[in-house]
């Protein structure tokens, strides 16, 4: 508890507010004692005087010192505000807990009434009650107190409902304890803290509102005076002596702000602390160490056929972590040829999605991208963004994201979101673009596309939305589609449809595809080539056809093995890869997989294996690359895992 309070005082705003509140309360206590007589003294020599050495803020029309009156007025102002706050909190919490005590039926009426009252501004309610209770300090206290009640009632209602749902309340109810007792015993103690914090803020608001009522002439009446009343008197002589209005105004403001900000800081301080986690690029710059530290051995350097759509060399992504920069992608090289389908697989945290976002330059603020080469259709993507490049990318590079529920803008019609590509990048008119959008929706097998185009994303099913997303990529003439877990968020029944659609598009238009998935089966089915990623590296690059039979990296084999197949005994639990993925903030010096690898030896732990052409790979698959010191070695048999046996015997 003390630590939490200290947190309040530690912020500059919190500290200032705390000091101010203490000062204001001290003034309220001591003010009238110290200056009470001085404030009432009439100086007939100086009536309506401007500020002077004797009267720092001048005098009023009876020659009384304004500054002293402001200081003395603090007690009445604060006292009345506190009284009003007490009324607001008491009335509000009674109303707010009524639904709990009175039960559903009666409670519903109370909360309906509160809801209606809350919709009206506090000042209007205060005026209403000021009429009922009459002009004067008492009336104003009641008016401001009752006007504040609905907001507190709403707050209490929410808080009570939160606590009432908890187990111990249900338990107390089940035992037959009365609702009123439960409220006192179990509910109120749990909501006291937020109520008190809000009451502090409320006190500030009450102080300011009270000044407002007094300023209107509806609050404190002469000869008593609070700050609002002094302001009321002062505004009349603002031309003669401005401080007569400014001094009480400043006092109200300072005191009101003090309570308000104190409450807000306490609320923040007692809440959940902010901080930690991966943050933006702002600090990535600070600690990011130099360029690529090491590289995969690419497919023979210089071998860049015109067929290459995407060419990636030594790609690194750096993000800033809580303790320095973290590198979730650590030197990745690959290329994608026209019409080729590449699958990238790996567990979550392997860097596969980061890689996809980095090569398409969509990482933006999430991290820094370095590479010795990053080219799409011969275009250098590392160069700064230009309008021309946006146009090229916008029409030739398509993205499909994991969650079609959130990937569309909820406030715009599907058709318009597709059409935007054509109006932006192809200079088409709205009408032409819309026609194209409908055509593309039809192309991705959305029935009744004309009508569908006019609907909003929430009116689409998940599978249909994902197809529309693919349709969006087809607005131009894509050379590459990057699909990041396109089926993961979908129903099993529609997953296949989406995969089939991607496969069909690829075949029809010779579009290259990068398919990112945690699921080896999915990529194996759709892709020609598979990149297996682990801890921000490619650990194996192999033809999809060899996945089941000729995978050489222990991790790839474990992934394949984790897939249930005909030989899996359905009664056995699924084989999983033991151990945890590497924390990108803490990558070991040797092979990153060594911790989990059954073949790991001393060399593995000391030296980092490079991704290199696999010497043992069959001659008909020259592009098979692997990063392992013991690639293809038989895996030891684990007694509890029969499917491993199968794998070991299979090569």
């Amino acid at each position: 508890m003390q630590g939490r309070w200290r947190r309040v005082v530690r912020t500059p705003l919190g500290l200032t507010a705390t000091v101010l509140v203490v000062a204001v309360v001290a003034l309220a206590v001591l003010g009238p004692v110290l200056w009470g007589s001085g404030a009432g003294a009439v100086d007939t020599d100086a009536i309506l005087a401007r500020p002077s050495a004797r009267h720092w803020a001048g005098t009023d029309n009876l020659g009384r010192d304004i500054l002293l009156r402001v200081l003395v007025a603090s007690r009445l102002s604060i006292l009345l505000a506190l009284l009003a706050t007490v009324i607001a909190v008491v009335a509000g919490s009674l109303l707010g807990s009524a639904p709990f005590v009175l039960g559903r039926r009666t409670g519903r009426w109370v909360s309906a009434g509160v809801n209606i009252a809350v919709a009206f501004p506090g000042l209007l309610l205060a005026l209403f009650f000021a009429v009922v209770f009459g002009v004067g300090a008492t009336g104003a206290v009641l008016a401001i107190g009752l006007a504040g009640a609905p907001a507190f009632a709403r707050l209490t209602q929410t808080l009570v409902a939160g606590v009432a749902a908890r187990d111990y309340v249900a338990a107390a109810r089940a035992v037959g304890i009365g609702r009123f007792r439960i409220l006192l015993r179990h509910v109120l103690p749990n909501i006291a803290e937020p109520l008190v914090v809000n009451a502090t803020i409320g006190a500030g608001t009450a102080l300011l509102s009270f000044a407002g009522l007094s300023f209107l002439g509806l609050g404190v009446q002469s000869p008593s005076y609070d700050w609002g009343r002094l302001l009321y008197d002062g505004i009349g002589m603002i031309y003669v002596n401005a401080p007569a209005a400014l001094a009480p105004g400043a006092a109200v403001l300072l005191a009101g702000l003090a309570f308000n900000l104190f409450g807000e800081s306490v609320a923040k301080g007692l809440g959940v602390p902010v901080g930690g986690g991966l943050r933006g690029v702002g600090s990535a710059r600070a600690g990011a160490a130099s360029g690529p530290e090491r590289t995969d051995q690419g497919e023979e350097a210089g071998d860049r056929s015109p067929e290459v759509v995407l060419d990636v060399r030594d790609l690194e992504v750096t993000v800033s972590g809580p303790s320095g920069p973290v590198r979730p992608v650590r030197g990745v090289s690959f290329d994608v040829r026209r019409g080729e389908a590449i699958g990238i697989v790996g567990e979550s945290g392997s860097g596969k999605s980061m890689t996809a976002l980095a090569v398409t330059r969509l990482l933006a603020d999430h991290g820094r991208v370095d590479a010795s080469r990053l080219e799409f259709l011969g275009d250098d993507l590392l160069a700064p963004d230009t309008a021309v490049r946006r146009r090229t990318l916008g029409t030739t590079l398509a993205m499909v994201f994991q969650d079609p529920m959130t990937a569309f803008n909820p406030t715009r019609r599907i058709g318009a979101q597709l059409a935007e590509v054509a109006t932006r990048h192809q200079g088409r008119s709205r009408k032409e673009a819309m026609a194209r959008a409908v055509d593309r929706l039809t192309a991705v097998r959305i029935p009744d596309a004309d009508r569908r185009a006019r609907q909003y994303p929430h009116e689409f099913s998940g599978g249909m939305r994902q197809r529309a997303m693919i349709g969006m990529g087809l607005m131009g003439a894509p050379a590459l589609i990057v699909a990041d877990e396109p089926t993961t968020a979908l129903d099993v029944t529609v997953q296949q449809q989406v995969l089939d659609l991607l496969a069909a598009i690829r075949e029809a238009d010779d579009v290259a595809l990068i398919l990112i998935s945690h699921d080896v089966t999915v990529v194996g089915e759709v892709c020609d080539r598979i990149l297996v990623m682990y801890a921000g590296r490619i650990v194996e690059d192999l033809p999809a056809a060899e996945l089941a039979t000729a995978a050489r990296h222990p991790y790839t084999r474990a992934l394949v093995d984790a897939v249930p197949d005909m030989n899996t005994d359905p009664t056995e639990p699924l084989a999983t890869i033991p151990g945890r993925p590497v924390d990108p903030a803490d990558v070991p010096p040797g092979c990153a997989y060594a911790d989990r690898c059954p073949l790991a030896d001393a060399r593995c732990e000391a030296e980092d294996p490079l991704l290199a052409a696999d010497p043992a790979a069959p001659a008909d698959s020259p592009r098979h690359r692997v990063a392992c010191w013991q690639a293809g070695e038989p895996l030891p048999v684990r007694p509890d895992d029969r499917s491993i046996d199968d794998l070991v015997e299979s090569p």
Partner: protein
Amino acid sequence: MPATLTVPSPPVDPARPRLWALPSVRFGVRRLRRLLVSLWVLVTASFAMIHLIPGDPVRGALGPTAPADLVAARRHALGLDGPILVQYLHYLKGLVTGDLGTSLASQLPVSDVVAQRLPATLILAGLAFLTAVVLAIPLGVVTGVLTRRGRGRRTELAFTTTSIIVATIPDFLIGVALVYVFAIQLGWLPVAGDATASAYVLPVFSLAIGPAAILARIVRVEMVGVLEADFIRTARAKRLPARAIYVGHALPNAVTAALTVGGLLLGALVAGTVLVENVFAWPGLGSTIVRSIITKDYPVVQAIVLVYGVGVLIVNLVVDVAIALLDPRSKIRED
């Protein structure tokens, strides 16, 4: 937040299931019902106001020395001498026919008083709201973009602190400060009245600055949130220019939430005119209601409270409809 009533939903008429199935129809009916209930509560409250006054309001208004027959006559003039139910029905009938009673102070029909004073208040509130929106949205969007994903920590802190403080200052104090600086010290702008165009500047800004600060803060927070959303990544994948992403895709989504709060602010702004009008001697409803409260001119007070209340209800309705149009999901969400 507009009032949410949990009244059991009406039975679905099997003859017209199609119409009722439309979300917009359901939304409209529900919203209308809420409006009517709120309106009824408001009217009843304004009727009850005079009866809630402890003691005898007529005697209170006329003073203890007034002769008894004058009190009785006045009570009759106010319609306070029949059984309460009759009075209530009489009051309702008056409202429907536009008869709001007669001012005790001026002997003029209250409807004339309101009609004469309302335009000045409407213009003041409308201009102030526009000013607040025009100030807040660009400010919120720009700081939102500058502080996205934990960038610009200092900008964020400075902006948040300033806006919290500014938002806490009541409008009438801003008014006093503006008068001091611009009317008295600099002498640029008139201090009171609505005679010239320049006389609008200070009252409008006094009312607008606080709401603008709150609104800008909300727009910023929403922008920061929206900029993290997947559909922004989609917009970037479409390779739209930055401005199209921020204004075309992020802003509409940020504004939806801002609008909810904006509605509350506008409601508060309607009431805030009362204080500001009194600072600037603005010839609107606000200065009238205060004078009437002090002189116990109850028919005028009742009518103006009613007008303010209706104003707030209309604002809430407009905001709800605007949100429903802007964010098509909200109609369904409430179901």
